[in-house]
């Protein structure tokens, strides 16, 4: 592959990987607290629509981006209500949240299909964007991409070097012991659900505010599920999530390019690529690491006590 082909492809990989990265970090945050949220797809899509609608109404993409995060947290709070208050099964509740979230977004979005909204435009970083190779791949994007560069190290710092982060992880590992040590386990799980949902919503908003600038139903197209898989792939480490997200972004970009260049491969086979890769990546990560780093109490509810 020549640089003329490779560099645009890598740049496209970063862009397509960014919404997945936001969502993966959100899902990881929730799981660190011990709450498995399989509703990422639904939460992303409500964030996606909220971002679009707020941008359309206010003309302010920054406000829209924040609103999308809040919409994500609000959607995820239903999962918190079912699992943390009513002790519902986390797997099933997550599936229900996917149905509900995608349903709500498509229900209110149907009237806006094909319409455009103001969003974020590319903003090349002076000096850095001029570095040959690295510049166009990493520093010639919209501001939301740059924000996503800062998040993984921040998440890592938060999880391993702050009291709040350590308490959150304790809640995901041994909620009983955490509670005995005076940690309000339920409160930390709520924090996990809400903050996690916030970032999933941001991931969805990236799609409507920076990736397409228009609304179509089901804009997320399975990216939420890929994010769920990437949390496993990344062994619950923010740094590896970056690698996984850009890998998938790369495959999606490649598939679009192959289609554009008029390959003889049927499009349905090309569209399979990300999903086949997800399975392959899961098999690979399970093969190579039996001790995957999953929080010990992931998906296990905290029984109500008297």
């Amino acid at each position, binding site marked *: 592959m020549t640089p003329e082909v490779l560099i645009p492809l890598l740049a496209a990989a970063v862009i397509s990987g960014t919404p997945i990265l936001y969502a993966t970090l959100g899902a990881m945050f929730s799981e660190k607290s011990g709450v498995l949220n*399989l509703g990422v797809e*639904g939460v992303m899509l409500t964030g996606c629509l909220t971002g679009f609608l707020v941008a359309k109404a206010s003309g302010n993409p920054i406000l829209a981006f924040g609103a999308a995060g809040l919409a994500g947290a609000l959607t995820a709070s*239903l999962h918190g*209500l*079912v699992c943390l*208050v*009513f*002790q*519902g*099964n986390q*797997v*099933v*509740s997550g*599936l*229900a*949240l*996917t*149905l*509900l*979230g*995608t*349903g*709500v*977004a*498509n*229900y*209110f979005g*149907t009237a806006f299909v094909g319409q455009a909204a103001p969003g974020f435009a590319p903003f090349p970083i002076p000096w850095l964007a001029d570095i040959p190779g690295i510049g166009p791949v990493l520093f010639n994007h919209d501001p939301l991409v740059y924000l996503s560069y800062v998040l993984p190290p921040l998440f890592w710092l938060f999880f391993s070097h702050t009291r709040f982060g350590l308490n959150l992880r304790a809640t995901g590992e041994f909620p009983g012991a955490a509670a005995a040590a005076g940690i309000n386990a339920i409160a930390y799980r709520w924090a996990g659900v809400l903050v996690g949902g916030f970032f999933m919503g941001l991931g969805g908003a990236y799609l409507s505010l920076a990736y397409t600038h228009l609304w179509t*139903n089901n804009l997320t197209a*399975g990216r939420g*599920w890929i994010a*769920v*898989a990437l949390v*496993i792939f990344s062994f619950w480490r923010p740094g590896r999530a970056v690698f996984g997200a850009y890998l998938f972004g790369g495959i999606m970009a490649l598939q679009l390019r192959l289609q554009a260049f008029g390959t003889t491969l*049927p499009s*349905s*086979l090309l*569209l*399979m690529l990300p*999903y*086949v890769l*997800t*399975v392959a990546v*899961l*098999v690979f990560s*399970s*093969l190579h690491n*039996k001790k995957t780093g999953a929080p010990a109490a992931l998906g296990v509810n905290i029984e*109500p*006590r*008297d």
Partner: protein
Amino acid sequence: MAAGFRILPRQEQPAWRSCLIVLAAVGLSLLLGLLLLAIQGAPPLTGFKVLLQGAFGSRWALEDCLIKAIPIFLCSLGVAIAFRLQIWNIGAEGQFALGAVGATWIALSFPGLPKFLLIPLMVFMACLAGGFWGMIPALLRQRVGTNEIIVTLMMNYIAILFLDFLVFGAWRDVSGFPMTASFPPGAVIGTMGSSSVHWGLTHCLVLGLLVWIFFRYTRWGFEIKASGDSVRAARYAGIPYDRLVVLVMVLSGALAGWSGFLEASASLNRLQPSSMAGYGFTAIVVAWLARLNPLSIAISSFLLAGLRVGVEHLQLDLRVPAAFGSILEGLILMTVLAGGFFMRYRLVPRSAS
């Protein structure tokens, strides 16, 4: 929970209470649904009437409900078998697709065979294909330890795209539309009497009964139930848990595949992309609503099929977006889950204790 209450576990869980909770959950979901209709500017009470009448208001509507309940019932039966073992098969949709593909392959390859040979061959191939699609995530889970939720979900996308690949490519009809040629008469199971309901309904009765017998009277059925309650205890008792996982997923996939066969053979008489109507996902809602019991699955399948038919009418009469159905399904599932709390616990005011 509320500070003024103590949460105490219940000793018994009578059936009437679970019925009451499901009814309350469905009622609450419908209420929230009507609120959403109002937000969109559709008159909620008229909407409710359209929904109910569209689903259950005429003979034609009831037949439509039965026709849609058939694939939901079979997929749900399969999903419930897996859920019994705490295996999360989210892949009914893909197993359904592969079943339809398998049956179609037989129908297109051997158009000259008489009906009494062709139909059983199609069923066999559909179950084989669906079962195979269910077996892969089971084997991966057993050998490598992958998470079956994600693998079955990804395999849905792969199977649906494979179906597209065939109907847009090699199997495309001479008319040029993305669908296969119409099946030969020997591959169509046909309708019962003067109704529009096809003979698949009888398959449901037989298969539902078989699954009930399987759980009640066979060793495997007992082992699945025991392992579902506690994997550790089951292993300790020498139950081959890993083999049960594969068995359960193959059965689950085969049932979804069977329903794929019915959809291709009876409802459409061909394979086309719209064969995939999301029955596999509705099946998950149904299995959970019914608490994994075959008879309740039948009732819930009929009700959720009614919801689909009713929403189609809402779409036509009041221009309500189709996504309304998925909202209601999600709401019902969430409220039923939350309602489960009141099955297992009771709230006692602090002053009373």
